[in-house]
C-alpha cells in the first residue's frame, strides 16, 4: 500500500495489518506524518508533534513483533491525544498559556494503558483552554479549524482530536467530555466519539475541568475502532476512586448483534435548551429510519425538561473550576481568555449548599430520565449538535462577543451536557452533511454501562451508511 492509502485505513485495519506483518508500524507512522504535513497547516490540530520519538517507538514496536511479541490490540498504531493527558516529565499545556511550559509529574492512567497496548504516540493535540469551550477557539495556541471547511469550527473542547481523526492524521485520539467535549467535535468533524458511563474510564492524570462531570473517551473513524480503544482504556483504577469495578467487556466482540428487535426512542427536541434546525432534524430522522429498516422498533420519545439539570451542571462546573483555578485567577487573571475566566467566576459566589444540592439532584435526574425517555426503550437517539456547524468568526466570543454570539455558543451543549450530569453513556456517529458540507452527528444514549449496546447500534448503522467513509479533501 502507498503511504496515502495506509493513512486512510481504519485503526482496526491498520492494527491487524501490522499484527500480520503486512505493514510495519514505521510505514503507518510515516503515512500519518505525511498526512500531518499536509493537514496541520490547514487545521492547527497539533500543538506538539514529536516525529523522532514516534518513529523510534514505531521501530521498537516492529522489532517486538519480529521477536514474536504483540503487546495488545493497538500494537504499533499511531495516535495522538488532547493536550491534557499527563506524561511524566513532558509538557502538558491544557491548551492554556498558564501551563505553556509546565511539565507533568505523573503519567495518566489511560496513557499507561495505551503504552501497554503498544500505541505509538505522535504528539499532543489542540484543545480549548483548560477544556473550557464548545467550539474549538483558542486564543493562546490558535484556533483549531474544521478539516471539512477551515472557516468553520471543529467543536470543542477536544478540537484537535476531532480534526486530526477526521483528516486522517491519526487513527484515533483521546478526548475528554465535561459538557459534550468529545461528542461535539466528533459530530462537527464527522467522526465517532464515545462518552462512556461516569466511572468507566479513569480520569487519573488527566487535567480536570470538573471532577464530577469529566469523562475520558476515544474519538475514531469507525464504531469498531472506538470499541477497540474503549476496551483498552476502560476499567477500575486505584488512582481514581470514582472508577467502577464492573468488568470491562471486549466491546469489539459484541458489535455484531445488529439492530433487529431493539427498541429505540427518537427524541427530536422542539424547544427548551436546544431548538432543532430542520436539516439536522431530517438527518437524524433518516438515521432512525435506517435503524428501523434494520429491524429496530422506533418510537418517538420526549426528553424530560432539562432546564434544572442544566443549571445544576453549571453550578457544579463553576464551583469546581473556581476552586481549582483560584490561585491563577487571583495572581494572573489576564493569562486566561476572557470568556474562560468569566465563566468560572460565579463559582466564588455560589453557596456551598447550592453546590451540594446540585450534586444530590443528580440521582433524581437519572431516575427521571430512565423512567421517562428511556422507559420501554433500549436506547435513545437524538442530534449531538442541533444546528449546522457555524463559522469560527460567527462564534468568536473573544473577538466578537455580544448576546447573539453568546447564545449560539451556549446552544452547542444543549443536547450533550445533560448526559454528563446523568453520567449515562452517549455516542456520536456521523449521520449526514449539512448544506454547507459540514458533518451532522447522531447521538445515541443508553442506560448506565450500556456502551456495548450503543456500539452495536452504531456499528449496525455504519454497516448500511457511508458517512463515516467520506474523507475531507
Amino acid at each position, binding site marked *: 500500500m502507498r503511504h496515502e492509502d495506509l493513512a486512510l485505513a481504519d485503526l482496526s485495519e491498520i492494527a491487524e495489518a501490522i499484527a500480520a506483518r503486512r505493514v510495519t508500524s514505521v510505514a503507518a507512522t510515516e503515512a500519518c506524518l505525511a498526512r500531518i504535513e499536509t493537514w496541520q497547516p490547514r487545521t492547527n490540530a497539533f500543538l506538539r508533534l514529536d516525529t523522532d520519538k514516534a518513529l523510534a517507538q514505531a521501530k521498537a514496536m516492529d522489532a517486538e513483533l519480529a521477536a514474536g511479541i504483540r503487546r495488545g490490540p493497538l500494537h504499533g498504531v499511531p495516535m495522538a491525544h488532547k493536550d491534557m493527558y499527563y506524561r511524566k516529565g513532558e509538557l502538558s499545556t491544557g491548551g492554556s498559556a498558564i501551563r505553556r511550559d509546565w511539565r507533568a509529574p505523573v503519567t495518566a492512567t489511560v496513557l499507561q494503558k495505551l503504552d501497554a497496548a503498544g500505541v505509538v504516540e505522535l504528539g499532543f493535540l489542540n484543545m480549548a483552554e483548560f477544556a473550557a469551550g464548545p467550539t474549538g477557539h483558542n486564543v493562546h495556541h490558535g484556533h483549531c479549524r474544521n478539516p471539512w471547511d477551515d472557516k468553520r469550527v471543529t467543536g470543542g473542547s477536544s478540537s484537535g482530536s476531532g480534526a486530526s481523526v477526521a483528516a486522517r492524521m491519526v487513527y484515533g485520539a483521546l478526548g475528554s467530555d465535561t459538557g459534550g467535549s468529545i461528542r461535539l467535535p466528533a459530530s462537527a468533524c464527522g467522526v465517532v466519539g464515545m462518552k462512556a458511563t461516569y466511572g468507566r474510564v479513569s480520569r487519573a492524570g488527566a487535567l480536570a475541568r470538573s471532577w464530577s462531570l469529566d469523562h475520558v473517551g476515544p474519538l475514531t473513524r469507525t464504531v469498531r475502532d472506538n470499541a477497540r480503544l474503549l476496551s483498552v482504556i476502560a476499567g477500575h483504577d486505584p488512582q481514581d476512586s470514582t472508577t467502577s469495578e464492573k468488568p470491562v467487556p471486549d466491546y469489539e466482540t459484541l458489535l455484531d448483534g445488529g439492530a433487529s428487535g431493539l427498541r429505540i426512542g427518537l427524541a427530536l427536541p422542539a424547544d427548551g435548551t436546544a431548538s432543532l434546525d430542520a436539516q439536522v432534524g431530517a438527518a437524524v430522522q433518516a438515521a432512525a429510519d435506517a435503524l428501523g429498516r434494520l429491524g429496530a422498533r422506533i418510537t418517538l420519545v420526549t426528553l424530560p425538561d432539562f432546564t434544572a439539570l442544566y443549571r445544576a451542571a453549571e453550578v457544579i462546573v463553576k464551583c469546581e473550576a473556581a476552586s481549582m483555578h483560584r490561585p491563577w485567577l487571583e495572581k494572573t487573571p489576564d493569562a486566561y481568555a476572557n470568556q474562560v475566566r468569566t465563566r468560572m467566576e460565579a463559582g466564588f459566589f455560589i453557596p456551598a449548599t447550592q453546590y451540594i*444540592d446540585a450534586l444530590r439532584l443528580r440521582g433524581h435526574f437519572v431516575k427521571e430520565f430512565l423512567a421517562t425517555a428511556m422507559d420501554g426503550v433500549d436506547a435513545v437517539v437524538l442530534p449531538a449538535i442541533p444546528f449546522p456547524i457555524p463559522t469560527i468568526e460567527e462564534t468568536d466570543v473573544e473577538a466578537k462577543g455580544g448576546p447573539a454570539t453568546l447564545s449560539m455558543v451556549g446552544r452547542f451543549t444543549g443536547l450533550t451536557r445533560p448526559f454528563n450530569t446523568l453520567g449515562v453513556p452517549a455516542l456520536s456517529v456521523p449521520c449526514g452533511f449539512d448544506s454547507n458540507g459540514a458533518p451532522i452527528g447522531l447521538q445515541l444514549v443508553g442506560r448506565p454501562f450500556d456502551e456495548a449496546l450503543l456500539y452495536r447500534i452504531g456499528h449496525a448503522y455504519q454497516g448500511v451508511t457511508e458517512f463515516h467513509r467520506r474523507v475531507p479533501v
Partner: protein
Amino acid sequence: MDEKTRTAAGIATGLQGLRYDDKRLGELAAEVAALNDAVRQAAAEWLTFDDDPFTFPSLLEREARK
C-alpha cells in the same frame, strides 16, 4: 447598586478576598441568582433528608441493564 449586587460585593471583598468592579459584580449577582434559584427550586421539589451525593456511582451501577 441593588441588594444582590451589594451581597456579591460583600462576598467578594469580605469573604473571598476578590475585587471586581460594580458592573461585573452586577453581572455575577444576576448569574448566581439565576443558578441558585433553579437549583433551590429543584431541590425543594426533589430532595429529601436522606439524599446522599456520594451514592451517585452506586446508583449508576444499580440502574445498569441486568
